[in-house]
């Protein structure tokens, strides 16, 4: 499985999705980083 380049700037991701008509994969995680 391809490694996912998760972003943390959620507001920016949602804005980008709106501008580009894309879906967002929004992951809520408690796993250590």
């Amino acid at each position: 499985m391809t490694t996912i380049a998760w972003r943390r700037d959620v507001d920016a991701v949602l804005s980008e999705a709106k501008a580009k008509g894309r879906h967002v994969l929004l992951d809520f995680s408690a796993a250590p980083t």
Partner: protein
Amino acid sequence: MTENFLPARINVHEQPADWKRFGERYGVQWTPTILIVDSSGTERHRIEGFLPAEDLLAQLALGLARSAFARQQFAEAERRYREVVERFPRSDVAPEALYWAGVAHYKATNDATALAQTAEAFVNRYQDSAWAKKASVWRK
């Protein structure tokens, strides 16, 4: 599959403000939770709890199909639902996808034979699933 999405992650320990704000916004009460959110910010699919990679990919594909269906893009929804069945035939979500593929075809065409054909498809696949029971009412 992941090329279909812009990925964002909130770590509940490291981003407490985001966790509070977005957790409340989307009613998230457990981790891991993955949401598929459309471009308007509307949640279209929810995956709660850990899944192996193959099952997660099947769920993501299902989520895109559900999003298309919710946006009344029925031809796209049918294509995506059938893709779930074809690519992930042994996944937990395959019977659900087969069911909704039939519904999406019906919604796109108003052709009720799509429902009967879906019921017949369940005679050969996923006979023990709840979705087979739901589709059985369409059998001629």
